[in-house]
């Protein structure tokens, strides 16, 4: 019989500190970028300084002769086109980082500059230079849904009693991983390689390296013990990783190659921008009737600016036309809940604007328009009630612009979001029980900062009557049994079921083996508090029981089985802000995040995922923006100074509330990494608007955007 989650868990659902928390906090943990095996050379990338250019010639001869230089690799051929600032050209490995940087500067590139477009406005202009063949604007077909009996979207709007029109925009942001992209590569003979990679996918990275060098993947070991954040941008070896391996092969020494902060911003991925020209109509009571949306965004030189809209709410008549705009900027990459934060911002802003026009409570209007047949609706209702209570919605919120004397205005906003988070069905975990009592789990998944290692240990400890610290949770090694790549909030729901099965199988195999020696049938044995019980009575310690295994360990491989995990979460966030209308300064006072995600394995790590999601979201709401210069095509803030992110003193009170009910627990394990970052920026925008009485249509909610919105409203005589 397949295993099931315990009805009254001892550890699961409780708060358990991370196994590697102390090592990380004290600096003992070795991140991939800390790895310097004996003789390591430093790799440095040379990347394009121009946004669009042809490489006329590359001359590496001077660089090759420089002190300490051990290998040079040219990535692009002469004549190739570079499509954005940060596009890869060549790389150097040298004995010191300084030597490598000097050598990179000594590579002579003759560029022929091509005209560029780095902003959406430039790319969409009538006389825009060609960013990609076939046009800079790729418009999808309009998709329209109409209810029975309604012929056109205009006819649908005619039935609405109130309609708002608005344009809402959010800029491109970058992932800002604290550990930049990269790896350290070390060859062991001509056809074996070890790489310490900062990656969300050890096996994917191993496959890429094997493919590139035409060696069996079993000869490739990718190790990621811990890593410094990926957020969706670190799924492969990338050009720089493959180049590091190539430099290492050439030089016969390990090569460490991690991007500098500038290239990290330029080429390490980004979340596309989004603009939505929205028309939304409803009946007097707030029941939505129709939505018409023209949207666009840019994912750089790649597609990927699509996002879900309509979002969350059920609207009988909708039409949507979306265009991907291509600019000379780095490729978009998946970023924490790809598409959803953008869709949420645009939908929720329009919802609030319409509620304001109708004079209905935006909370009530949201409830009214939840999808009637969606299982999430019940969950939303419960979450909205809890969140409203925690923020004081009914008691404290006032209509727009009516809250506060003097320049400091108070505002409240909310947003709903949703996500999938179901696991993959083809992953495995092995569990080994050794005669000395040690227990080891293995799988080729990795901990991208979510606490994945601890999750597996908690499950094993739960089943075996031990403590998580008794378990060795061995992940981040591509040579282990297949583990999940960490994307889409799927790691825990993919790995928890096979972990439970592996440990349960191993325990059963152990019982079968030691039963004769401990005086009972296998069915009479159980484990509790570090002891082996026979017919419910403590017989011996766990260690003594394991000794009965004799010389042989037990290893079992667990697979996915149904019923242990699920997908599909809701979630609501509420925000309280004050806005100084003289300075445009927004201060976050309180953020309430009410979130479901089925059965929560480690509540402490779960809370930290939700807080982390909120913090990421508040950066999006208040600060972040990739700024591109139209003339030079350069990114102007490729740093961590003018690319702004919150520090400790910008943090509001964050209240994390888990919808941890018997009904939710019964659903099994669901991922949590992405959903809690979706709604924050949308709710902040709505809170700011509620405070100042004027819609700020441009994210982030910076003093500039807030003051500009106030100024343009007062020019129109509205404020």
């Amino acid at each position: 019989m397949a295993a099931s989650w315990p009805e009254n868990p001892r550890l699961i659902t409780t708060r358990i500190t991370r196994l590697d928390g102390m090592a990380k906090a004290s600096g003992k943990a070795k991140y991939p970028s800390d790895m310097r095996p004996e003789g390591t050379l430093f790799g440095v990338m040379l990347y394009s300084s121009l946004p669009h250019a042809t490489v006329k010639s590359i001359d590496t001869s001077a660089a090759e002769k420089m002190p300490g230089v051990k290998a040079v690799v040219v990535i692009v051929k002469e004549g190739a086109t570079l499509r954005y600032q940060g596009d890869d050209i060549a790389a150097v490995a040298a004995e010191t980082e300084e030597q490598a940087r000097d050598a990179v500067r000594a590579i002579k590139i003759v560029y022929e500059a091509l005209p560029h477009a780095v902003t959406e406005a430039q790319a969409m202009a009538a006389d825009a230079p060609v960013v990609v063949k076939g046009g800079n604007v790729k418009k999808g077909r309009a998709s329209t849904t109409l209810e029975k009996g309604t012929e056109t979207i205009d006819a649908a709007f005619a039935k609405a009693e109130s309609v708002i029109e608005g344009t809402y925009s959010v800029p491109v942001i970058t992932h800002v991983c604290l550990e930049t992209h990269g790896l350290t590569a070390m060859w062991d003979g001509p056809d074996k390689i070890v790489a310490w990679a900062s990656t969300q996918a050890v096996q994917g990275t191993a496959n890429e390296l094997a493919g590139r060098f035409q060696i069996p993947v079993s000869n490739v070991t990718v190790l990621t013990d811990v890593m410094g954040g990926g957020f969706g941008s670190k799924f492969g070896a990338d050009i720089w990783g493959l180049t590091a391996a190539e430099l290492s092969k050439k030089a016969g020494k390990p090569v460490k190659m991690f991007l500098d902060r500038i290239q990290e911003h330029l080429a390490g991925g980004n979340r596309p921008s989004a603009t939505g020209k929205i028309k939304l109509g409803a009946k007097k009571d707030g029941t939505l009737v129709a939505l018409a949306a023209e949207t666009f965004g840019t994912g750089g030189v790649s597609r990927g600016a699509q996002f879900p809209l309509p979002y969350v709410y059920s609207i009988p008549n909708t039409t949507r036309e979306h265009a991907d705009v291509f600019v000379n900027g780095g490729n978009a990459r998946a970023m924490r809940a790809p598409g959803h934060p953008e869709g949420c911002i645009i939908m929720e802003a329009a919802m609030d604007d319409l509620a304001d026009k109708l004079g209905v409570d935006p909370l009530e209007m949201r409830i009214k328009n939840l999808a009637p047949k969606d299982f999430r609706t019940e969950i939303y209702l419960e979450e909205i009630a809890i969140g409203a209570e925690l923020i004081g919605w009914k008691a404290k919120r006032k209509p727009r612009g009516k809250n506060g004397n003097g320049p400091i205005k108070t505002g409240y906003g909310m947003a709903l979001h949703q996500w999938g988070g179901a696991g993959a069905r083809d992953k495995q975990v092995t569990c080994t029980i050794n005669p000395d009592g040690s227990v080891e789990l293995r799988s080729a998944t990795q901990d991208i900062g979510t606490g994945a290692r601890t999750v597996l240990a908690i499950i094993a400890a739960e089943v075996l009557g031990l403590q998580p610290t008794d378990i060795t949770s061995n992940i981040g090694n591509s040579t282990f049994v297949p583990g999940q790549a960490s994307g889409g909030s799927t790691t825990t729901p993919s790995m928890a079921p096979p972990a439970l099965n592996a440990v349960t199988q191993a325990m059963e195999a152990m019982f079968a083996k030691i039963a004769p020696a401990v005086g009972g049938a296998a069915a009479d044995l159980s484990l509790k508090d570090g002891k082996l019980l026979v017919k419910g009575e403590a017989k011996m310690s766990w260690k003594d029981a394991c000794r009965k295994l004799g010389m042989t360990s037990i290893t079992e491989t667990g697979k996915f089985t149904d019923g242990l995990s699920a997908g599909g979460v809701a979630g609501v966030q509420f925000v309280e802000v004050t806005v100084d209308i003289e300075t445009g300064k927004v201060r976050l006072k309180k953020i309430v995040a009410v979130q479901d995600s089925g059965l929560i394995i480690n509540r402490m790590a779960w809370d930290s995922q939700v807080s982390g999601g909120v913090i990421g979201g508040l950066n999006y709401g208040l600060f972040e923006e990739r700024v591109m210069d139209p003339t030079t095509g350069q990114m102007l803030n490729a740093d961590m100074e003018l690319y702004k992110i919150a520090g400790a003193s910008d943090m509001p009170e964050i209240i994390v509330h888990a919808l941890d009910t018997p009904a939710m627990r019964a659903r099994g394990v669901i991922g949590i990494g992405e959903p809690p970052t979706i709604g924050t920026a949308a709710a902040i925008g709505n809170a700011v608007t509620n405070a100042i009485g004027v819609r700020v249509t441009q994210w982030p909610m910076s003093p500039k955007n807030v003051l500009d919105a106030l100024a343009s409203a007062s020019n129109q005589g509205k404020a």
Partner: protein
Amino acid sequence: MRAFDYASPPTADLALKALAGGTDTVVMAGGTDLMNRMKDDVTSPGRVVHIAGIKTLAGIDAETIGAATTLATLVASKVIKDKYPALWQAASEVGAVQLRNMATVGGNLLQRPRCWYYRTGNGLLAMKDGKSLVRAGDNRYHSIFMTEGDALFVAPSSLAVALIALGAKATILGADGKERTVAIEELYSIPKAEGESELTVGKGEILTKVILPKTVGKSASYEAREKESYDWPLAIASAHVVLEGGKVKVARIVLGSVAPIPFRSEAAEASLIGKALTPETATAAAAAAVKSAKPLSGNAYKVKLAEVAVKRALLAAVGQIYWEV
């Protein structure tokens, strides 16, 4: 960053020698500005002369502040806090605590502009093919005053704003070993051509101390910024008023982060003379201060911020804070 010589002399005289001995030498105090420019290849000195170890340059003695005094030390001084609140407030909001632990008073006054065109290698005036990148591009953090010329970056020092309002002076040890003392505002000038500096302290010279006036009136600074943690002012103002019989006798009002040099507003000052300092007169003075503002394409919002900063600095100086809840 490129390779460079390094000297860490124990005395100011030896520092002068070390500065004179190399090509392209530069002083380093806390290094929080210089190192960033070196890492970004904006500044590539042949020799760095580190003055942090020169004991005579550090510390606060009555009205004299050594140039190598850290901002943390400045902020910890009760005398500064009580007698020169404009300076204390400006200093206490610089960057964040980690920065203030390293950054020095001299380095703060002589730091180079943060203009993102300058810092990405386009030169201080950021002209390309005879056109201003700043005017054509993203100028949200740039000047709103004196924007007729090509220098559109903003003077970055918060301390300079407060020190000018307070009427402070700086002493400079010249390359010839002779000292001179100048008003803080004389440390700055507007460059007319690429290659000219916005600073008047020459290569091979050392700023040794800042001298505050013995008697001062009431003062305060107000800064508007995006983040609470680690950030720059979008606009900052320092106000210093001497009141006599409830009326303003002397007023010095200076704005920062709004022009290529600290911007003293004589118009605002004049509007206050002979009047009581009230919300109404402060509002009028603030309006006078921004009358000559000529914002660029993307920074009209800074005019509002500059205006509010002047109003609030004035009212804070007389304890009339109306904007905190």
